């Protein structure tokens, strides 16, 4: 596995700028997740690294060597897509073995058998090796397609929303599994998603993208606790961060336009009187929807809270974040 470095990479499609002046270091053995909404440039970045697209400007290095102009095969990367594309007429075993038997790799059959068995065991599909690919459930098919990447030891694994077509329970299971596999193999992995839970739970570093630009890069904890902008702050956290005008509470520094208050950073008992609008019991947490001088605020309450709509409670911020008029973090 290897370091992957992007230096001032830009890519446009006609008049649309997909990726703009992006620089990023993906360290050997790290699990980097690119997070952003549709159109932020996540998939284009992945395709630029894989060689499916060429940048207009900038350099991409894998293991210290510029790969501009090289084919995907020469770059030695492995991709997993959102839609699992397996060979339907082949067994799981042959699907997994396929990349190893390619004319470039020409792996000896003994070696192929050993690697397939190893990967099948890691992914818990060893009992399905003789099944036709079409006789598998959705989750199993996606595991096979991940397995087809894992049989190789490329410089980097590139994954484009590989879990998004699966149901919630299976997604939760594979999140843990994928992270465990990556850690055990010491693999370098670049993973694209718009799902903040996936980003927070699996990444060693998250890269937050906004309209083609990398706006913050850091550990999930850094991004959650120390966002550089209102945009980044609103990408992570459920319920979302409350964005309130600076004069709603005292104490905003000069230049501040917006107070960013995470739901768990609202203290109850003292401060400004807010009206309870609605209470949501979600089981493990209870959300309070409050109204303060016409502004909606969401905070958390004790799970068995007896508050009711119409009640008034005093609230004040704790560990508030402050942003200027352009949305940049100032304190």
């Amino acid at each position: 596995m290897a370091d992957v470095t992007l230096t001032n990479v830009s890519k446009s499609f006609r008049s649309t700028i997909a990726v703009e002046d992006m620089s990023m270091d993906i360290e050997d053995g790290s699990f980097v997740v690119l997070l952003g909404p549709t159109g932020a440039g996540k998939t284009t970045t992945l395709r630029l690294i894989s060689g499916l697209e060429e940048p207009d400007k900038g350099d991409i290095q894998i293991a210290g060597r510029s790969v501009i102009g090289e084919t995907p095969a020469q770059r030695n990367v492995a991709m997993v897509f959102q839609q699992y594309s397996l060979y339907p007429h082949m067994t799981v075993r042959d699907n997994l073995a396929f990349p190893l038997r390619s004319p470039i790799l020409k792996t000896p059959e003994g070696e192929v058998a050993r690697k397939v068995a190893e990967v099948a065991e890691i992914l818990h599909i060893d009992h399905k090796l003789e099944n036709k690919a079409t006789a598998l459930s959705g989750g199993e098919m996606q595991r096979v397609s991940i397995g087809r990447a894992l049989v190789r030891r490329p410089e980097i694994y590139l994954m484009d929303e590989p879990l998004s077509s699966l149901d919630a329970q299976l997604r939760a299971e594979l999140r843990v599994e994928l992270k465990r596999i990556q850690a055990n193999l010491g693999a370098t992995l670049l993973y694209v998603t718009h799902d903040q839970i996936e980003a927070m739970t699996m990444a060693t570093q998250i890269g937050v993208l906004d309209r083609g630009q990398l706006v913050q890069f850091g550990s999930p904890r850094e991004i959650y606790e120390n966002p550089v902008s209102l945009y980044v702050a609103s990408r992570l956290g459920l319920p979302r961060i409350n964005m309130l005008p600076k004069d709603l509470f005292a104490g905003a520094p000069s230049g501040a336009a917006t107070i960013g208050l995470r739901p768990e950073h609202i203290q109850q008992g003292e401060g400004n009187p807010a009206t309870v609008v609605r209470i949501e019991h979600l089981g493990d947490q209870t959300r309070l929807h409050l109204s303060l001088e016409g502004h909606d605020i969401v905070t958390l309450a004790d799970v068995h809270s007896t508050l009711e709509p119409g009640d008034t409670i005093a609230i004040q911020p704790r560990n508030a974040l402050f942003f200027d008029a352009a949305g940049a973090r100032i304190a």
Partner: protein
Amino acid sequence: MAEIRIQNLRKEFGDFTADQTTSFKIEDGEFFMLLGPSGCGKTTTLRMIAGLELPTSGEIYIDGQEVGQKPASQRDIAFVFQMFALYPHMNVRRNISYPLVSQGMARAQVREKVAEVAKILGIEDILDRPVSGLSGGDRQRVALGRAIVRNPKCFLMDEPLGALDAEFREHMAEELRALHERMGATTVYVTHDQLEAMQMGDKIVVMNHGVVEQFGEPQDIYDKPATMFVADFIGSPSMNFLKFKGSVEIGATTIQLNHQTVGIPTLREPFDGDIVYGVRPEHIRLSDAAGYRAEVIATEYLGTTQIITLSTHNGEVKARIASDQPATPGETVGLEFNGATVTLFDNQTGRAIRSELNEGVLSHG
């Protein structure tokens, strides 16, 4: 508006029984959720309330009147489907007016009603726009408007948010709930999404294989599940099931779990056999002093909290703890369970064993 009572409702499609003796009651003005996995019979139940399917046996009462065998047109209900079906060649105003015009209502009155509904939904500014150019959210609002405008006795909704993406769904869920608060109409809502059900419902019916597993308020169902199916289906991550063989007496407040004494709510019935110790992830604490040992397998950071996956003698367990508490894969830790919140189950039948915690819920369920 309407109270709906379902009595021993049964529906068979040939050899397949979609609904087996389903009974529950929906109070006037309630936002009522029918929750379950696909194929559990929730949509069939809804369609029988609507009159789109006729029950094989059993009764449906709307405001005390038995309507089970009556056609949909005589029930005065409005149905909102997952795919909002609008007339593409009509503008928003004509789409919303349509149900009234076809009833033969006077034009002035139609105008008034449409204006009122548009105001409730906040779509006054798009009334004269064609529906083809509208965003997903506005189309959904127009479909709702067409249901509301008739002032029906109740609304029936079949996964109305199912086709929307996650972020927008959250937003529309809040909007629907706020609309319900303004109008107070009885609403029956079908979903397979447990979070949506918890978030929006006043009451929830959980169905599985055509059978009502549990019926009650969201927090009660979460805290006091009647069956292992409900415990597993509601909550994310779901309830941990630690399985073992043992026997417990009436009045017991502890049990032996792998030679360690752990707490349970005071038992109201004895049990002997395959027991399941059911504990929610947020009711497990990591503590060096605790005797029940486990190995940390994985940690998942979620902002304020983190999910810890642990390997124990009784299988894999997930705990939800504060994210500032250290936990490293590979290390061995002690687990403390909040005994008062635990539900014991009979592993053979999947039923909850009665205790101080759940006896109030189980006796009428």
